[in-house]
């Protein structure tokens, strides 16, 4: 059994950002202790069932860097107890807030086995950071990124785009000028129920599209290529962990609300989702959903087409036992005719134009496809 990746969810944040709809909560000592204890138990149970050591480990949140060194040490030991010293050998990533580390801490993280920091810088401009409600200023944020690089860690810097009043190009250049080899750009979205939504914040669709295109050209100047809708890297600097998601490979997940995808329960695997923190602390088991051929096909297109490498169409068609040309003939014709997707060497890829409209491409697929079972019967 292959389980190349492990995701660990850490739901704590120093403060709550007004645009955030993640699963997170403010830090509270008693709760963190119970969290660590439960995580240790879950690591033991999951590793007993899936003992193969994950090559990549990713700590996501929330803000994992808000765990103390001692807490992180306990968590890492739990992973090592379960999966051995090789857990995370290829890549161990920790999402970190700029204000949560200094040189001493970076050394400690390296010693624990962290190889990569995903830094939530968001912007290199004070006004934009204030608008976003972030506690760090631009100077402190850039300084933190530089420190991480100096400490010999790989750094993945998150930059937010399409914020009203933001100069996206300046933000991107300030980050790239530091020598960062991996940048993730996300457009601000105003999710219902968030404080931004209540305040009536709006994202201008034209500015959003401009920023999307601008990110591609600016970062290319620095040798960073868009290898996924929102992710840019120098060759060899891609996030191995995240690639497992986009390649449809299995991964384990622990922590509240963590998801997992495992090759069990049928030919197309099963997705799991842990309950939110209260139920998770009480030991409730994850929800499971075995995928059908139709689910699998959709998920592969949904995630695979986000990447520059695209999907292995021939392999995919063999696996689901149906040709895309039969499942969605009109769609396939239209998306190729309009040069949104292209087929080369047995792979299906999004063109730059297709990448920018990928959700529309997928909606059209879902709207016009026929179920695979029916297609087989025909």
């Amino acid at each position, binding site marked *: 059994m292959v389980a190349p990746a492990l995701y660990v969810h850490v739901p704590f944040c120093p403060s709550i950002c007004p645009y955030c709809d993640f699963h997170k909560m403010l830090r509270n000592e008693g709760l963190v202790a119970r969290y660590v204890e439960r995580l240790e138990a879950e690591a033991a149970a999951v590793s007993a069932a899936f003992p193969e050591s994950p090559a990549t480990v990713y700590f996501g949140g929330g803000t994992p860097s808000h765990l103390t060194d001692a807490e992180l040490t306990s968590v890492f030991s739990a992973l090592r107890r379960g999966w051995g010293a090789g857990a995370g050998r290829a890549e161990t990533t920790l999402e970190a807030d700029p204000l949560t580390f200094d040189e001493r801490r970076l050394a400690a993280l390296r010693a624990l086995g962290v190889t990569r920091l995903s830094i939530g810088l968001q912007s290199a401009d004070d006004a934009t950071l204030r608008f976003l409600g972030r506690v760090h200023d631009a100077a402190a944020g850039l300084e933190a990124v530089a420190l991480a690089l100096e400490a010999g860690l790989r750094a993945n810097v998150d930059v937010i785009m399409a914020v009203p009043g933001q100069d996206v190009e300046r933000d991107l250049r300030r980050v790239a000028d530091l020598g960062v080899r991996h940048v993730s750009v996300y457009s601000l979205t105003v999710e219902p129920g968030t404080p931004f939504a209540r305040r009536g914040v709006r994202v201008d669709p034209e500015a959003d599209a401009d920023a999307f295109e601008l990110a591609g050209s600016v970062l290319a100047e620095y040798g960073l290529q868009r290898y996924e809708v*929102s992710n840019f890297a120098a060759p060899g600097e891609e996030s191995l962990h995240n690639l497992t998601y986009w390649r449809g490979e299995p991964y384990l997940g622990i922590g509240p609300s963590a998801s997992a995808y495992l090759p069990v329960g049928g030919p197309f695997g099963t997705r799991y989702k842990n309950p939110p923190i209260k139920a998770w602390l009480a030991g409730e088991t994850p929800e499971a959903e075995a995928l059908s051929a139709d689910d699998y096909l959709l998920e592969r297109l949904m995630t695979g087409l986000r990447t520059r490498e695209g999907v292995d169409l021939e392999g995919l068609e063999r696996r689901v036992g149906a040709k895309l040309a039969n499942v969605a003939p009109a769609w396939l014709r239209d998306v190729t005719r309009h040069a949104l997707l292209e087929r080369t060497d047995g792979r299906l890829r999004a063109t730059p134009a297709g990448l920018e409209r990928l959700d*529309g491409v997928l909606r059209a697929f879902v709207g016009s496809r026929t179920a695979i079972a029916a297609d087989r019967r025909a």
Partner: protein
Amino acid sequence: MEIRNFSIIAHVDHGKSTLADRILELTESVSERDRRDQMLDSLELERERGITIKATPMRLHYTADSGQTYQFNLIDTPGHVDFNYEVSRALGACEGVLLVIDAAQGVEAQTIQNAYLAADNGLEILPVINKIDLPAADVPGAIAELEEIIGVPGDHAVPVSAKTGENVRAVLEAVVRHLPGPKGERVAPLRALIFDAVYDAYQGVIAFIRVFDGTIKAKDRVLIHSTGKVLEVERVGFFRPEPTVAAELSVGEVGWFTAGIKEIADTQIGDTVTSADSPTDRPVPGFKPAMPVVFSGLYPTDTEDYPRLREALEKLRLNDAAFSFEPETSEALGFGFRCGFLGLLHADIVQARLEREFDLSLIATAPGVVYKVVTTDGAAFDVQNPSELPTPDRLESISEPFVALSVFLPEEYVGSAMGLLQEKRGEMKDMIYHGHRVELRYEVPFGEILYDFHDRLKSLSRGYASMDYQFLEYRAGDLVKIDVLVNEEKVDALSIIAHRDKAYDVGRRMVDRMAEVIPRQMFSIPVQAAIGGKILARATVKAFRKDVLAKCYGGDITRKKKLLEKQKKGKARMKQIGTVEVPQEAFLAVLSTEE
């Protein structure tokens, strides 16, 4: 107890339903608590649109000045021309009518049409001049028009205000005095007319009847004259206005019966119900079947709803005997029905009732008239669906229906009305002056007055024009089929037939409207109108520039997949044509008015 059965008829909005409200109040037929405006307009759609769609019967008791109490069965009817079949059936249950005339508007097109309908049925007409509270009310003028235009004597006309209730009692006294009571024999075999029906989930068909001879009560064995079907009556009753159970219905009365009828085909509107033991040999003359004149396709947005749509059409047809349907298929829309209606409003109401009362989501294609076609090999047939029109090389001739149209309006608007009629290819036949009002008589292709004609006539006359039409004949014309291509594919359900001289304008209007209503999608979509292979007009639905969410990591995958699937399900009144989502409004693009 003596009985009076009468309908309230009039032109649209002259105040029938409001007059019915006052009569109900005056006879204390509804409790204070249940009162509301236009009590008898009980359909949700009637209340929303402020018009009567269904004829609604109601029983009440009136104690006259003489001290004698009468049973009244009153039927409030719709005024709109599309629901005229409702009126004609209601009249089958009555001996008389209240012909309501708005004192400020005078006699209008449907005043005349409905008055003639009553006269043709041998009913006594009692004129009621309504809205006398309005400053513009002209009672003598209205009476003069009544006498001059319709030829109904005005001596017994009762001036009232249905709004304030003024003089309404005089209407009821006049009903007693001037409208005849029913004739017929109580001790005789049952003879009753089914004039309407409704399907009830628990009781099956509730048949609305008027008893002409004999009586009907629970457990009676009755025979449906045309089918020979024998039924045992379960319950009988009258209307208050909701069906209320009674011990029996006797000669002259209006009411309903149930007999556990689940098969809708077992009851025909216009049929006679008689005693199974001694059936009558004199069935009540039924109704002329309604002749649908406007046709459109109705398709479920979800193909799996086709059987439910069929069932809904059967049930609704029971309550609306004026529309027809038969199965058809469309390449673009799948399985559906070609439905015939009495007019555009009727088509709209049927679609709305199907959607609400039967919880369906439907796509309707543009309504059109029936064309007569002769092909080069001599075959002659009707074309109800434009996509069935043979190609020009196989077409010998094509004819379209013409109607005799009369338009009533104040003389100052005659010029603009004539301009409009000319644009609609109308030919003037006559122009008659009634005082300051003019009646224009035209012959005009029915297809030309179908869509925006009435609205434009109303607006050019500030609401004062009214119109009526009668089918005349088919006439050959230079007619062509306009096809519409969406994303370079011909969509059969969008084809329409138009006169060659107007094809360009019609095509232009359609594609512009479609480009407005088709939502932006992943690529820009050309919408074209064409005759044969020749493109007449083109418009473009622009693509989204950016349409992709930033994040899709492990935990987002399931959520995102569910969202995509939900978006598909949430598409009421949208049809996927290839990869393009086409909303209902796009199918009705031809109805959009030129600005």
